[in-house]
């Protein structure tokens, strides 16, 4: 559905995007992550036809990204999408439906059903008088007013409260069921991790990692195993609950600890797998701190590994 090859954008001596190359399939949700100035937004705007590439090609739904016809197939949600505050949600969406040549009857039904799905109230209230979350939902509805095949969402949940964030992320996931292709950019990597099928990580205009989240984890992350035993062994540390913990990186080491515990007359009581988050991989790759803090809904205990817990009986 989207093909990008050798895409490049320079401003004088500054290269905003350098030789980007990726393909996105129909119905895929594709994440673009990276720190500020990494070239994410420039890439998305080149795909939307807003910025002319210095070099390379980008095709969207079979059209060149610069082709005005392509825009009929595209829904674009910029990071900042201020609305016309004197209009109501309905009049605002109808205005854009007209620009996309959507017949009035079709537009009316589509607008109402999209607003229903987004659970948007106050459809006839001045947009200047509604909350930021509501405005963002209206902006999302606008991106769908022409029923596009491709959606480009730049920070769709930026600055929203947790409840609205979840609502927007859920809605984005639902778009996959509608066979929409979504390019999704976010600072918050937990959003990307939870929604996207595949991801590219950009830094200083270049793609430095790509693949599914699992692939990237395998490729760039180091999985660690936290092995808990009821007996003190070499290389273990006592824990607060009276057990002893060893942190190892391979299954062979885990098996060695199990054997040692048995030899010492004890046993391994718990093994926990600590998989790296996309954020930690990102930080390692880019050597930077993510700019936006995690929201309450994203928060998971970072100090204690929680994934893939194994009872001792299940341990290999």
């Amino acid at each position: 559905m989207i093909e990008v090859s050798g895409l490049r954008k320079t401003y004088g001596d500054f290269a905003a995007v350098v030789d980007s190359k990726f393909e996105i399939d129909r119905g895929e949700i594709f994440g673009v992550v990276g720190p500020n100035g990494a070239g994410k937004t420039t890439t998305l705007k080149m795909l939307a036809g807003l910025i002319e590439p210095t070099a390379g090609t980008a095709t969207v739904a079979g059209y060149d990204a610069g082709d005005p016809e392509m825009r009929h197939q595209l829904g674009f949600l910029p990071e900042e999408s201020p609305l016309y505050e004197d209009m109501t949600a309905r009049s605002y969406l109808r205005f854009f439906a007209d620009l996309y040549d959507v017949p009035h009857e079709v537009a009316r039904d589509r607008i109402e059903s999209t607003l229903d799905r987004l659970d948007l109230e106050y459809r006839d209230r001045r947009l200047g008088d509604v909350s930021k979350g509501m405005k963002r939902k209206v902006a999302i509805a606008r991106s769908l007013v022409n029923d596009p095949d491709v959606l480009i969402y730049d920070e769709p949940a930026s600055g929203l409260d947790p409840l609205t964030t979840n609502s927007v992320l859920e809605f984005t996931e639902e778009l996959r069921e509608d066979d929409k292709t979504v390019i999704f950019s976010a600072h918050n990597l937990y959003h990307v991790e939870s929604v996207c099928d595949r991801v590219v990580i950009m830094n200083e205009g270049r793609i430095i990692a790509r693949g599914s989240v699992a692939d990237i984890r395998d490729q760039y992350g180091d999985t660690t195993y936290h092995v808990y035993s009821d007996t003190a062994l070499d290389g273990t540390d006592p824990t607060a609950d009276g057990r002893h913990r060893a942190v190892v990186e391979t299954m062979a080491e885990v098996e060695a600890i199990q054997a040692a515990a048995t030899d010492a007359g004890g046993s391994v009581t718990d093994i926990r797998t600590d998989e790296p988050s996309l954020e930690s991989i990102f930080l390692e790759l880019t050597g930077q701190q993510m700019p936006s803090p995690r929201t309450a809904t994203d928060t998971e205990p970072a100090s204690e590994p929680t994934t893939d817990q194994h009872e001792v009986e299940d341990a290999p």
Partner: protein
Amino acid sequence: MTRVDRLRTRLATAGRRLRRIARIARWELGQSTSSYNRRTLAVIAVLVVVVASVGTSAVALGVASPSPNTDIYRVGVADNSPYTAVIDDHASLTARPPDRTALATGEIDLLIGGVRQPTAGPGPRSPTLLVEPADGEKGDAALTAFRSAVQSYNDRAMALEPNRTAAYPVVVELQYIPQSTLGPAAPTNAGNLTGDDTPGDDADSDDGTDTDANDTDTNGTAGNVDGGPASGSGDNTTATDNTDSDAPPVADGGGGSLLDRALFGGGTSGSPAEIQPPFPFGSLLLAFLFLVPMNFVIQSYGSSVLNERISRRGELLLVAPVERLDIVAGKTLPYAAIAVATTAIIAAAIGGSLLSVAAVVPIAMTFLAATFLGAMFARSFKELTFVTITITVFLTSYVFIPSIFTNVTPIALISPLTLVVMELQGEAVTLGSYLFSTGPFYTSTAVLFLLGTGVYREEDMFSQKPVPLKFLDALDARLSGIRSVGVLTALFLPFVFIAELLAIAVLFVLPIEVSIPLILVVIAAVEEVAKSVHVFAGFESDRFDRSVRTALLLGIASGIGFFVAEKFTVVAQLVGLPNLQLGEAALQPAGIGITPSTSLLLLAGPLVLHTVTTGVAALGARKNLWWYLVSLVAATVIHAAYNFGVVTLYG
């Protein structure tokens, strides 16, 4: 696909585009009107109604300006005196019983006595009114006010006089001759008339009679008034009716209507006392009437364009399947419609026809186009304010100042307002004059919108680039190859034309020995900038490689473009501007107005000149700004030298 199918497709596309433009226009209108809330609109409406009502009523009742001078001089006069009516008609005078004691005690300031008839001996030969002022300054001031009152009263009485010959024994008729047709020797009949109108002659004769009149003001007027003081009622409209008789044409003749007198000052025929030097009140009024409303329109338009940029709302329109030109057209249409409607209403109100509307509309369009480009360049509302004020001042000056000289010099035709003045004066306006006046405005409008639309894109709209860089971007956006450089140069010609005509208009007041060399240098500089600035923009954006060969090719393309477009200045010949010496100096170096024997040489001359000088400028432009400026000066020097040569040889 058959030809019919292609045509059908094109028509369908055009229909869709028009629908979108109309939709954007409707939306823009809603946006701009909603920015004023209902309460504000209601308050404005009420204020307008109140001001208009009060103003109209005040004017109608004659109490528009309750003067502090009312009834300040008390004049002792008998009830049956013919001067009672004079005093009653004058605001600063009030009648009191004639009492010498009151004069002595200061209760009255002036005492009107009887009329002394002329005697056979020395002394006045006409009846003399005896007037006695009170001692002191107030008495003198009262006497002066009384003289003025008598003069005004008599003027009104004369205007009512059915026998025009008796009322105005001397009638003169002025005819203003354009400066360009005025030869060294005063020609024919017109020469005599203008000769009469020379300040020296006029002053001498008028001063003589005026002095006498003043001396005998209190004398001679008595006799006149005695002859028929009547009640002094009636108004000027009666005077106009009287012109139906076989009396001399006081308020008749070309340009002598009351409206013309009100608008253009003085009138051109009547008694010497009635005729005043022409004052460009008409041009001033027209400039005020037509241009002031435009300022409100461009303020609103500029704010709307800038608001789309600052708030980034315009981004969503850019990503919609709408051409940039259509977005701009849709956003501009409501303001253009308001400007045209306002112009039409004002033209109708002042008695102008469709010609007046057609003359002012291109000014309005240029206002909008310049504002659009300014709003595309401005980075804040502060900068926009500067831009709109600059546009207002420049364009207002450009259209107002030349129109002052409507009856003086053909240079006045560079302003379309001159066409309006001509129409209101009953003069014919030729198609050539119309094209000459409005052509630069129409084409400038197109070019300004073209440049503005070039930067109506994400990379320029929402960035905070300095204005000069945006200007270069706007130029670069219209470049695609070497040929496009020539096309853009040709499109700049209206600006060159405007700048050169403005320079002529400003410099023509200087002595010819100074103005002609100066104008030749200014013209050279203007043309060299117009031919090379976009070449520099193309190099700066790396659109062109910086080789010498490319620079020279660009110079040749730009030179040819300018040469071809310059030939359009032949329009100037239609209105006789080259008859003016400065016009010749300005236009003949371009090869215009040259005899056939020299035309071939001078056709090749400008072509070589323009390609060479632009090549020189392009060679500097390929390096950097500093080198561009240096090479631009060099090109200007070469160009000015050529101009001097042509003027010296053929001028």
